[in-house]
């Protein structure tokens, strides 16, 4: 039915006509990832780091192999610079609560774009409240870009700059190198949220020169329940653990505890080994596909989708690629006269899954002057035929609402 070389890798499409356009919320999983986790539980399940017997050693090996795989995937240099957490949100909270609270003082500033996901916004807002620091926003222009003038808000008062490499509403890349350079120039720490970017483009943390970066496995073909934090070694060494307890300690006496080295220090309690095994397999999947192939396939889909939507005069797309040079396969739009939730519900009756709502970006919605929008996010398993179905379905939605376009 679909002329797509990748779709067959994903069992969720096997017996359904599902058209899944919400990969930015969570991606579907290839069979190889699902099988890797199943095999782990069937053949190697044990508590890592603790047991002296072979099964536990194997679980430990698989867990640490996942760390190595991800470290090399983002060019981190040393696997010890990778911390496994639950999701990108937890990684950002660890940074805000542990690092933020330790460096911020009244009149200090944290700078983030207005287009950030709540996960890279609320933690900073809360730590600013606690410390008396100010949360300063870089506003986007009508195209979704950040102008040089806005960048001047990064000043000597700025202690932390945190931003998404690719935003989950505009689908545009911010000028990461420029922002990081500017942050370092004023002595601030630069944090990059790569939750959306890494499934579409290679991330090289050394080239970026960011101090920290965060990721979510479930958005890059891996399982839910695993988030990754990268940090420069000297930054991680300074970071106090947020959670304490089993496996993250060195010595515990009745009234004193010393903590293990990085990264164990940040991984309290029994970890999700199966999840890491799944992530390892997801990395292998992306490597096997290759970013050039991903970018080519997704790029064609994105252009096709934009072209098709541009023909519909009652569709308004938010953000423009020329604002930042590249449009990722994520298109946020509105349908004139129809609430986005109604659009999504009606599309669903035709088997088309799009996201509608505030996309965990309420401040941006307010900045755009809308309550909600629709979002189509694409991945390798999508096809042009699906986009045709989307467009036809949108036309039908307008008819149901009584528009005679």
């Amino acid at each position: 039915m679909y002329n797509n070389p990748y779709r067959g890798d994903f069992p969720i499409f096997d017996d359904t006509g599902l058209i899944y356009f919400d990969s930015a919320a969570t991606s579907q999983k290839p069979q190889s990832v699902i099988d890797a986790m199943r095999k782990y539980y069937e053949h190697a399940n044990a508590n890592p780091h603790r047991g002296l017997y072979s099964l536990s050693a194997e679980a430990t090996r698989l867990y640490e192999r996942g760390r190595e795989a991800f470290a090399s995937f983002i060019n981190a240099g040393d696997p010890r610079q990778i911390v496994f957490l639950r999701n990108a949100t937890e990684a950002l909270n660890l940074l805000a609560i542990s690092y933020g609270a330790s460096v911020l003082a009244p009149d200090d500033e944290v700078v983030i774009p207005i287009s950030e996901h709540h996960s890279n916004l609320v933690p900073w807002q809360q730590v600013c409240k606690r410390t008396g620091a100010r949360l300063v926003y870089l506003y986007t222009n009508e195209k979704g870009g950040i102008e040089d003038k806005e960048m001047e808000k990064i000043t000597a008062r700025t202690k932390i700059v945190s931003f998404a490499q690719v935003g989950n509403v505009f689908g545009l890349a911010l000028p990461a190198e420029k922002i990081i350079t500017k942050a370092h120039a004023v002595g601030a720490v630069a944090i990059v949220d790569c939750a959306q970017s890494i499934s579409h483009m290679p991330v090289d943390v050394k080239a970026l020169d960011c101090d920290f970066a965060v990721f979510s496995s479930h958005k890059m073909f891996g399982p839910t329940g695993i988030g990754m934090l990268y940090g420069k070694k000297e930054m991680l060494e300074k970071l106090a653990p947020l959670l304490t307890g089993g496996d993250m300690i060195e010595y515990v006496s009745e009234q004193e505890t010393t903590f293990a080295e990085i990264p164990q220090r940040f991984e309290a309690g029994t970890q999700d080994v199966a999840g890491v095994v799944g992530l390892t397999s997801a990395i292998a999947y992306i490597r096997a596909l290759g970013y050039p192939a991903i970018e080519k396939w997704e790029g064609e889909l994105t252009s096709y989708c934009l072209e098709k939507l541009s023909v519909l005069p009652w569709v308004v797309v938010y953000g423009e690629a020329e604002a930042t040079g590249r449009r990722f396969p994520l298109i946020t739009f509105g349908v004139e006269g129809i609430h986005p939730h109604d659009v999504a519900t009606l599309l669903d009756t035709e088997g088309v899954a799009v996201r509608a709502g505030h996309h965990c970006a309420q401040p941006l919605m307010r900045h755009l002057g809308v309550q909600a929008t629709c979002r189509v996010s694409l991945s390798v398993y999508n096809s042009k035929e699906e986009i045709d179905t989307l467009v036809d379905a949108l036309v039908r939605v307008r008819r149901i609402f009584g528009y005679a376009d």
Partner: protein
Amino acid sequence: MQIEQLYREVVLSHNKAQKNRRHLANASVSEHGVNPSCGDDITLELEITSDHRIRDISFVGSGCAISQASASILADLVRGKSVLEAKELFDLFFQMIEGDEADPRLLEASVFSAMAHMPARIRCAVLGWRTLEKALAPYWNEERQEPR
């Protein structure tokens, strides 16, 4: 295509029922309701007589077609009813939403029986009713204590 049918009716009543979207001159109660997760926003205004009858009811607000249409249909339904009759309709509406067959007394509101197939949108359909519940709760309590 129950959902598409729902929408066709919703759109119809939505269009014709713009008469309910207004402020009341003599409102005795005004109640605000929101769905934080989707941003639906309704304010009901009611004029309630001393013998606990809903003489008039209107709404203002913004949100999806379902939330707005449901509020408008609700207004038509309870206008002129006693607060106890409104309570009965409220119960019937929720019974329907939870899967029961629609009671004929629900009239146009019975179109929302399709909500059973769209759990993510139930909160839109019930927002107006929940707001009504808050608005009438004092009357309902009072009535229950001193049945007429």
